[in-house]
């Protein structure tokens, strides 16, 4: 589709954004109310708002994307619009990088400054007077106040499930690239095979991650309440896991779209956007494996 840009196209007015805003509002209202109700015993309607908002959002996203796919297949999109989508997805991924950067930054700060200072080291050693006798260590097994934040008995060894998960996720990036190459060659059978393998690898990763969480909670005492090690561990791996989940859903949708024959060898931005996202999630995992598990 390489039509020279002689005139511009602008979509007609659309009802999806406003419905999506309402859905987001219901989700936010419902989530806040539900979370606030956790501490009290009161049964409100908040969780229903949350569910309604989420369902509405799923429906909107589905219909909105369907409309975009239809427009694309009608050949309404010029190369220029394709580039706009690419810029959009790239900058969205950059915003995700910054989101994770906030949590990685928190981890680095805690490890390099906050915990050593609490243990009496360096410029702010006076912080040790708060909890005399506290000694800094990482992973932080003994928190300053063991009653409020009982530290973990043990942390996850990097060389078990995490190593396996690293192999799984790195391989999934390779298989996805093979699928992409096959798509460019127009070999749809191979696309299906390798995309299917990628999805399976993603699901395996998630399965092992859940297993790891169960072990952490039931056997190791590694919980959200286990002091700063547990907090940083779960927020980083948790948000990563959420992103892998979303990525897997996206891969499944792409898989269905491959079956439906949506993609051609030279027009498959939807496929590429998902694969960019998947590679991004993969890179974040490498950071996690290094800084959360090994070091």
């Amino acid at each position, binding site marked *: 589709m390489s039509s020279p840009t002689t005139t*511009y*196209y602008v*979509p007609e007015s659309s009802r999806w954004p406003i419905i999506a805003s309402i859905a*987001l509002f219901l989700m936010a209202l419902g989530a806040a109310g539900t979370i606030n109700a*956790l501490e009290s015993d009161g049964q409100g309607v908040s969780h229903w708002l949350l569910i309604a908002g989420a369902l509405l959002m799923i429906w909107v996203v589905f219909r909105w994307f369907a409309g975009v796919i239809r427009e694309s297949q009608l050949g*309404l999109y010029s190369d220029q619009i394709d580039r706009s989508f690419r810029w959009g997805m790239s900058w969205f991924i950059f*915003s995700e990088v910054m989101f994770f950067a906030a949590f990685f930054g928190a981890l680095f700060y805690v490890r390099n400054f906050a915990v050593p200072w609490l243990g009496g080291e360096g410029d702010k050693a006076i912080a040790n007077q708060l909890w005399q006798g506290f000694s800094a260590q990482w992973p932080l097994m003994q928190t300053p106040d063991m009653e409020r934040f009982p530290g973990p008995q043990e942390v996850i060894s990097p060389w078990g499930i995490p190593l396996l998960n690293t192999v799984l996720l790195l391989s999934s990036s390779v298989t996805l690239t093979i699928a992409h190459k096959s798509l460019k060659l127009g070999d749809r059978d191979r696309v299906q095979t390798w995309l299917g393998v990628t999805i399976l690898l993603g699901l395996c990763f998630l399965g092992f991650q859940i297993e790891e969480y169960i072990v952490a909670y039931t056997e190791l005492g590694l919980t959200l309440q286990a002091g700063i090690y547990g907090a940083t561990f779960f927020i980083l791996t948790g948000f990563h896991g959420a992103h892998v989940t979303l990525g897997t859903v996206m891969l499944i949708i792409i898989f269905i779209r491959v079956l439906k024959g949506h993609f051609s060898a030279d027009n498959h931005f939807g496929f590429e956007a998902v694969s960019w996202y998947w590679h991004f999630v993969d890179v974040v995992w490498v950071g996690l494996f290094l800084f959360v598990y090994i070091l």
Partner: protein
Amino acid sequence: MSSTQAMTSHHATPPSGLMRWLLTTNHKDIGTLYLIFSLTMFFAGGTMALVIRAELFQPGLQFVQPEFFNQMTTMHGLIMVFGAVMPAFVGLANWMVPMMIGAPDMALPRMNNWSFWILPFAFSLMFMTLFMEGGAPNFGWTFYAPLSTTYAPPSVTYFIFAVHMMGISSIMGAINIIATILNLRAPGMRMMDMPLFVWTWLITAFLLIAAMPVLAGVVTMMLMDIHFGTSFFDAAGGGDPVLFQHVFWFFGHPEVYIMILPAFGIVSQIIPTFARKRLFGYTSMVWATSSIALLSFIVWAHHMFTVGLPLVGELFFMFSTMLIAVPTGVKVFNWVATMFRGSMTFETPMLFSLAFVVLFTIGGFSGLMLAIAPADFQYHDTYFVVAHFHYVLVPGAVFSIMAAVYYWLPKWTGRYYDETMGKWHFWLSFIGVNLTFFPMHFIGLAGMPRRIPDYALQFADFNMVASVGAFMFGLSQLLFIYNIVQCVREGDPADKRVWEGSQGLEWSLPSPAPYHSFSEPPDTKVALLLTKGGR
């Protein structure tokens, strides 16, 4: 049926009535929505400011309880930052960027609608907290932990989700602007041909995409600490309340440039027009803007000098902060050099821009004073800080927005505003703003702490002056509304060019500009000629 989204004729008429505004994908409609929303929030946040100033008119407690006073300072700050200033700039970008670069619309028009319509819902959530048990957020707009975690009212959860929604809106808005600028420029328009307003917005959009996710991260950690037992900001579990400040200000400092870079762009458009000269030092302006943006990521801890940073941290953040004065100085000198020996006239947009240059510079200098760590130990958390950031935000950002509205209003509506009334609005605002904020320097240096509803007797005189000025400034904004309404309803018809000295692609369109700005790419040579002139 709109779900088919058929992109048929681009001259199709929009749906009428309310549905036009709810469903629109048009950059001008969405720009208008942003600007009206921003003006509404400006009055809401302004009313809260007047509650604060009424209470501070005299020492002692007059009108409100300290608890409510705290809610007012918090909500005033949040509403002005996220509800008034940021959406106003996004609205101006929506209106002007496609017109300035010769594009038909924004790159992603449906997402553009979504970015806007999230905002009214986000602020509904925010305003709802005022009526909740325990009251609205009361911990200051910077929501430092543990005030915002351990000691927060239950409404903090709603606040957190409202901030998430604003973040989503800002990020999508920024992605749209960046994609538009990078991808939809008229054929032949290179990056270094772009008008400065477009340049500053490109860089602002980058800052937004980099900073807003960090804000999302920090409120998420708050949520986890409050409700799920983590200890990010609690030293008892090995965390650190200071960590909150680091992450918050890593967002917060780029955020203050998000609120001033587009202002630089606006002023760089207006001053050449009314000086009838090309902008002096276009290239250095672009580099200065980029430098300011990059430096904004390595200066955050200058907000935290008194929290007990290691010495090396104090020094690093002090010097890196002072470094920002260099590119900022480049800009101020360039504006002055643009006016040097120009044929200047003083219409309302120019008056606001001139006031911007002078008063923003005052704010910049007080910022330099605050950047000196040992001196900041004295100024920290006093009214000097309040004076400083209000000088850069009110006669800085807000004045630039007003200048932009007066400057482009004839292009938007096809009608001129009443120049005399515009000048009244300017002078009353100018006097009001200085009466309000200039005395705060003195009471701040004398030691009056910020965010406290009562004060010692020796601060009474200056506080009274500030309160009078605040009401004067606030009430004179009614003139702003009057001017806009009068312009829309009965202004004299405006021609294409609007201003004698105006240069740039937006002035090649009729006034009012057609519903879709450029349905065909404008002629390359004309585009280049016009934009180059517009520098």
